């Protein structure tokens, strides 16, 4: 219905750039917090179950269920209990992040070659020492990929969370919706959406960098 008015968009940006920035920072903050917590929880869960077939498949199935549930549904379901704003957002984001992280942790730990495991054991390392000195460093690139996937997921889901008053650029998107028909509707929605896209690409790039920096040179392909 509305045509695309570049001039109007640029004016919009010049007037609202501080809002946009603030929302972008909020967006990053909520994603970072959630992914960080999810990584800690997820890696711990992965360490607990990687070696035990039954708990392992149960855990991965449960985490898979979480990922299948539509985000709006999950967000809405927990609002009666957790209210609106940051809390339900962070909780949902952690929920969604768990599958990629747990699954990659388990896969990474299991893929360490038997020859390496045996020579470590033969050298007198205890299982705990093998886990921390050998398995985790070798599995790290794979785990980090899981975190990366989780980050990508949550950046998108965080946009929806604005509907339950969650922080971030989603607020602009929904403002575009609620002001449908007005001349700024498109600008709001576009700014919000573009902002999320740019954030996603930046975060992805950051992950490539982090992976390169934290992976041992001996492991890089």
């Amino acid at each position, binding site marked *: *219905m509305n045509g695309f008015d570049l001039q109007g968009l640029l004016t919009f940006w010049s007037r609202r750039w501080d809002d946009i920035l603030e929302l972008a920072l909020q967006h990053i903050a909520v994603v970072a917090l959630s992914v960080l917590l999810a990584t800690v929880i997820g890696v711990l869960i992965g360490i607990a179950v990687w070696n035990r077939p039954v708990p392992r498949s149960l855990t991965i199935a449960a985490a898979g269920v979480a990922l299948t549930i539509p985000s709006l549904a999950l967000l809405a*379901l927990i609002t009666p209990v957790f209210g609106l704003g940051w809390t339900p957002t962070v909780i949902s984001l952690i929920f969604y992040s768990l599958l990629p992280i747990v699954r990659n942790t388990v896969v990474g730990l299991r893929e360490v070659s038997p020859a390496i495991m045996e020579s470590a054991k033969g050298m007198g390392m205890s299982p705990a020492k093998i886990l921390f000195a050998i398995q985790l460093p070798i599995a790290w690139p794979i785990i980090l990929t899981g975190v990366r*996937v989780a980050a990508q997921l949550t950046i*998108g889901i965080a946009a929806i969370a604005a509907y339950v008053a969650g922080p971030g650029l989603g607020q602009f*998107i929904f403002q575009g919706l609620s002001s*449908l028909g007005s001349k700024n509707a498109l600008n709001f929605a576009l700014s919000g959406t573009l902002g999320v896209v740019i954030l996603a690409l930046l975060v*992805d790039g950051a992950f490539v960098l982090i992976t390169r920096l934290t992976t041992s040179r001996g492991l890089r392909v």
Partner: protein
Amino acid sequence: MMSTVTSDTQLMATRTVVPPARRRVFTLKRFTTPIVVVVILAVLLWWVSSLELDSIEQRTLNWDYITLRIGEHLSLTVVASALVAVLAIPLGVATAKSPSKVFRAIVLALANIGQATPAVGVVILLAILWQTGYTTALVALVIYAFLPVLRNTMIGIDQVDANVRESARGMGMTPAQVLMRIELPLAVPVILAGLRTALVFCVGVATIATFINAGGLGDMIVNGLKLQRYPVLVVGAVLVACIALLIDWVAGFIEDIVTPRGL
């Protein structure tokens, strides 16, 4: 930048890219999901019928209303997924077989940007630029679910062992025959995994379609939230979650059945 295929393959850790090595047996374990879903729905039904519903809730929590919403939701999901399959698989094949690295890079870059775009953003932008309603929602779903299928198709074709390809050519098959008889069948598990992901995405995004008057179970969730009617919200949310789980399960089932024996 890490090699695209490596990062893609690892990125797909979200959904199974690796062909499932399951035996196709009708075991109890296979039916866990539907059984759990039925149990949840039964509990839901029992809970709702035990409530005293006010007039607003009654307007929503009746069979007619609910079946209508479910119908809209499923319609969006299935139609969008079908469109995605028809569009993305051929494009994926073409891209995988294309000799031009530039073409591949462009397609993958566009698809990546598409995936990085939040679904809700796409839906609302389209609504503003064009119109609200069912068709817009459909287009948004197709855009959003495009990438998993495209990417999986490409990976599926690429990952066919070079030796297998070579011996097929050595037997005198034309490239087209190799594609139809060898590569595609071998790529089927991976492509199906992508379709399964797409289906689940579609159920999720169809929920958001409520914001642009496209109907679906999202209506119940949003109404429940707006009007502070907890039962409506819960029923809507649980129903859509169950649908998502069931669709995922059906897709998994089909994946297993269609995967060529020996894989």
